[in-house]
């Protein structure tokens, strides 16, 4: 019986998308199904934002001024740095340098934890100012988007811890690192979503 590797056999994407015809798929197909689903989910959030902004332009012009911009900037820099650390971890596993790979993974997970702390502080700060999900349409969209993103950072940080555990067990090498790479592309996707969320909620008036 013919066996097919998982990365090319799920039959979810058209044949023209196969690695043979379109090029290497970073990670594996299942993680890309997850990523495309997440992009759709966040796409719906972004559509909701633009529709709400169309109907309530004044509320959306004032909304960002009520937020703590400094905390938003800090979290953006923290997430960008985490993406950098993840890319460095990938480059080191390709050199079979597990020690440095693990070091960068710890830095990435630290950034994830710092993001969660800063975001929790921001939610607390908001509540001290009297803002909640029901304050107005801007804050409904703000909490809807940012809390969802918060959850993604939370479970992806747990996934980094799992990958560190697997790395220590010797599961990844320069030859086989698809599991680590799958997590890396998922983590970058989370960073990408924040790159879009940040200007929408904190910068644009």
């Amino acid at each position, binding site marked *: 019986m013919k066996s097919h590797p998982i990365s090319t056999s799920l039959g979810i994407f058209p044949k023209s998308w196969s690695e043979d015809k379109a090029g290497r798929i970073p990670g594996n197909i299942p993680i890309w199904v997850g990523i495309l689903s997440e992009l759709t989910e966040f796409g719906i959030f972004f559509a909701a934002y633009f529709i709400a902004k169309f109907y309530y332009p004044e509320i959306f012009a004032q909304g960002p001024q009520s937020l703590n911009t400094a905390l938003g900037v800090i979290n953006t820099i923290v997430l960008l740095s985490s993406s950098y650390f993840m890319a460095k971890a990938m480059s080191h596993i390709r050199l079979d340098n597990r020690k440095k790979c693990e070091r960068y993974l710890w830095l990435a997970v630290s950034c994830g934890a710092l993001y969660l702390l800063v975001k929790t502080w921001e939610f607390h700060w908001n509540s001290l100012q009297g803002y909640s999900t029901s304050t107005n349409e801007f804050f409904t969209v703000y909490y809807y988007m940012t809390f969802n993103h918060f959850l993604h950072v939370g479970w992806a940080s747990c996934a980094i811890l799992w990958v560190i555990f697997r790395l220590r067990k010797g599961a990844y090498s320069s030859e086989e690192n698809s599991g680590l790479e799958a997590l890396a592309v998922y983590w970058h996707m989370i960073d990408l979503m924040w790159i879009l969320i940040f200007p*929408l909620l904190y910068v644009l*008036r």
Partner: protein
Amino acid sequence: MKKFGKLEYYLSALVGITLLNTFLGERFASTTLVSILIALTVIYKGFVVIDHFMELKGANRNLRMLMRLYFVLFPSLIIVSAFY
């Protein structure tokens, strides 16, 4: 001394653009020009992460196209929303 490589350069650019965007948003009222500038920088940031951190440059061209399309579509809506 450690080499300042490609990834370090891109990280610096991403952080610099983030600070510039924040400055634009804080300093100026959201004029159409500011919104267009911010949308363009968001597209650039997205492309950098997709190509160099996610490493889709030189990988599967359809996935790369899809990701880049996403990062053209939604920032374009920022420009559209500037005309509300």
